[in-house]
């Protein structure tokens, strides 16, 4: 599986051109000087590094680097580029000590000199004939000690030696033949590897789970199922459906982690099949689908849960990044639709916030208890009509529930007001920057017989741009975390399938369906810089510093897209490419 650059090959590269020699030598020194990643580094990462999916445990997608800032971002230019493997583009470039670790589709991974893009080593995992089309959308690995740890398309955990790319160990967690896979990568918490399993949108009995593993071997330490077992609390919310026929609950994005309380915050996706009539669960809540699970990182015990949508049937998943923020909580009732009745405004709290699900609703909960604080929508939606704070769930519009074969008009579209493209949080502005999209759908549940290992095939749907959007699908929106107010909004025809990066330079970066990569002023929303790429960017932009120079890395290539609703926006398929930008050197 490993393809190591041999000495002979290195010699050939060096011989290919005089200019190659210094860069190879420098690249080698990058690995020589590579230092192990510690727990302290993960909790307080060096400004120059990007060690995990959204850079910190709080899932901010924020870097304090400010060499590139609102005053000079207009001078940004390409420093280097790198062609990536074909396949789904959902990569997150990680950087430590000047080495970039770039895991692409199907876990094909390369270590590059982060200043030049020169190849240091590469690892090619054997690609299995996976039944799930999304299995190779592998978003992120994590750096810890002297290892790069990944969760794979064939449901393994794999640790590579960060200096050589050699496999240190691998451990099978799920069964890819029934659909299991990892797309959201692992994180390190409490000295353990934590991983959320996906692929439970294929028919596999009992649903998915979140598990903890030994960092030295991958051996499983605990497992928390995302679907309540019949004889456990919440088990009765699936009615009489036996465990063998309880499906779904993928945990397909990386969770957040609070080291102070040793608590993990993971999101759980939808039940399968989508329709309660298809599942046979009646009006049961089907726990813990569409919930946030607060999990004790030591034991896997569920401390609390908050189920955003009970008995859901439109594929409006809630597995996305939860952000941990300490903030004043003073929601402005003029802009925030739902506020907890007993909320004492003005208090400073540690909250779980962000847009956890496809409804595009910003939800803010108390991090310690899971109590509801406030929520507001960002896009057209007709599914949630209120919040039952006491029951800790949304009130669902019964008019959009349907029987098998009955068509209903539902907002948002099942690709979501937002999907796996991640918002970012900037502590300097106390704002979330969200790449949301206005699309609704005509939705019909199918009569479909579940087949073990096969896709569930629950429904068919067609996207529709709602009238209220005036033809604009994309809406890049800044929301104040304290007040819930819209700080600014950038609406346009093209959707926003790209993830967000925000920095200490008062900047926010995001890409759209029309190949535009832009830098916005984080405070005002003014567009300060724009670069047209070869295609949309499905990967996660990151920033880092090497030898005193700040870089912006953007993995372009197709991931999620809203372009079916804007057919005049033509984007080529394929063309995965990593672009790295920096300011000109003196």
């Amino acid at each position, binding site marked *: 599986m490993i393809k190591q650059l041999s000495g002979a090959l290195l010699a050939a590269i060096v011989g290919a051109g005089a200019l190659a020699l210094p860069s190879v030598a420098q690249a080698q020194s990058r690995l020589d000087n590579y230092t192990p990643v510690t727990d302290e580094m993960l909790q307080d990462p060096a400004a120059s590094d990007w060690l995990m999916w959204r850079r910190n445990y709080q899932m901010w997608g924020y870097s304090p680097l400010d060499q590139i800032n609102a005053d000079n971002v207009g001078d940004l230019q390409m420093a280097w580029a790198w062609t990536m493997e074909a396949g789904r583009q959902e990569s997150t470039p990680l950087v430590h000590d000047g080495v970039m670790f770039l895991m692409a589709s199907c876990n094909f991974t390369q270590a590059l000199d982060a200043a030049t893009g020169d190849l240091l080593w590469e690892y090619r995992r054997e690609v299995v004939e996976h*039944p799930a089309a999304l299995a190779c959308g592998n978003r992120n690995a994590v750096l810890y000690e002297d290892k790069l740890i990944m969760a794979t398309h064939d449901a393994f955990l794999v640790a590579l030696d960060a200096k050589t790319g050699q496999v240190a160990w691998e451990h099978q967690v799920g069964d890819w033949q029934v659909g299991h896979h990892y797309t959201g990568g692992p994180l390190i918490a409490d000295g353990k590897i934590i991983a959320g399993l996906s692929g439970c949108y294929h028919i596999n009995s009992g649903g998915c789970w979140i598990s903890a593993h030994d960092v030295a071997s991958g051996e499983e330490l605990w497992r928390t199922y995302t679907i309540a077992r019949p004889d456990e609390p919440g088990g009765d919310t699936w009615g009489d459906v036996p465990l063998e026929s309880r499906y779904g609950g993928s945990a397909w994005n990386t969770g957040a982690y609070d080291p102070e309380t040793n608590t993990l915050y993971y999101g759980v996706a939808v039940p399968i099949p989508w329709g309660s009539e298809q599942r046979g669960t009646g009006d049961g809540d089907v726990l813990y689908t569409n919930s946030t699970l607060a999990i004790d990182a030591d034991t896997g015990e569920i401390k609390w849960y908050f189920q955003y949508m009970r008995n859901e049937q439109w594929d409006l998943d809630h597995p996305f990044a939860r952000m941990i923020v300490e903030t004043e909580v003073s929601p402005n009732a003029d802009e925030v639709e739902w506020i907890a009745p007993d909320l004492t405004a003005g208090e400073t709290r540690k909250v779980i916030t962000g847009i956890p699900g496809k409804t595009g609703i910003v939800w803010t909960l108390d991090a310690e208890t899971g109590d509801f604080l406030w929520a507001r929508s960002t896009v057209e939606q007709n599914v949630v009509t209120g919040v039952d704070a006491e029951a800790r769930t949304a009130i669902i519009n019964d008019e959009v529930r349907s029987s098998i074969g009955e068509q209903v008009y539902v907002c948002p579209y099942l690709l979501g007001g937002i999907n796996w493209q991640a918002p970012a949080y900037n502590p300097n502005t106390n704002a979330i920057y969200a790449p949301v999209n206005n699309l609704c759908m005509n939705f*019909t549940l199918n*009569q479909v*017989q579940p*087949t073990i*290992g096969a*896709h569930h*095939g629950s429904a*068919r749907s067609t996207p529709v741009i709602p009238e209220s959007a005036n033809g604009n699908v994309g809406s890049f929106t800044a929301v104040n975390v304290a007040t819930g107010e819209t700080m600014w909004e950038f609406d346009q025809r093209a959707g926003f399938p790209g993830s967000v990066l925000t920095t200490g330079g008062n900047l926010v970066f995001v890409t759209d369906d029309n190949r535009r990569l832009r830098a916005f002023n984080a405070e005002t929303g003014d567009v300060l810089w724009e670069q047209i790429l070869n295609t949309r960017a499905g990967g996660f932009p990151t920033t880092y510093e090497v030898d005193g120079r700040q870089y912006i890395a953007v993995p372009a290539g197709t991931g999620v897209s809203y372009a079916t609703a804007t057919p005049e926006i033509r984007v080529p398929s394929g063309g995965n490419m990593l672009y790295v930008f920096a300011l000109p050197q003196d």
Partner: protein
Amino acid sequence: MSQLRLAPIAACLFLGVFGAPAVAQSMTELPDISREFLNLQNRLEGDTIRFCVYGASAIGEYDRAVAQLLGDALLLEVEIHEVEPPIAVEGLDTIPISLEDLFILLTNDCDGFLGIELAPDVYPEWLTFTRAYFTAPYVVAVREGSFESFAQLPPGAPIATQSLSTGDIQFGAFNTNLPEAERLSRRPYPHTILQLERLRDETVDAAVVWRPWLERNEADMAGLATLPATQLALPSRPMGIALRSRDTYLRTSLDQAIAQLEADGLLDQLYGELYRPVGTQP
């Protein structure tokens, strides 16, 4: 089976997927499949007829024999193409391939596909069917000696069904129409092998299953029985041969052959030779 990766992500046959007005357009068109996957020269010719058979179905063995019988009746050589879906699940009432794969099979590999449930308004127009060559009902299986009639099952008794099969849907409709206090507890399972396993280990009191699963030679009916006809009117599944709509002459020929074999009692005789009708097992 074609290398085209369609089957794993598609729904099973007989799903009603194409039943709604929203997709009426696709009912009248051929599937959007690249020509590179299709053998456009391969049409019925000479003295050979090719049948696709899914051996893992409840009547796979019978289908093979019927194919031979039909070939003999039409004075044609018979070639059997064994269909091996990427995901094969024993005990499943439907065939786990997509309509796109069925189109490819009927274009490249066979002239007809046996073992497809006949149902109105659920298939696209490029598909046609012969008359039914086999029909069998869903039945209620119980542990021997536990219950003698369906009416004896007490309210709340757990009943195993195969999720969203025809029998499950009919049972669900029956159960929903009962007064709430008299309802049984529907327990959907992904396939019949598991239904029967849960019946044996007493997780459930009865199982609604398609009768041929109980009548196969491989079926272990020791300790199991079926209940006589009851107030629960379970459906029968008529099975036919799927063909491309263009093959009208072949459909007429097969219809005539099936009718003759049926009139001669040869289809029933064949089933009796290969299967053990419920009630006659040792």
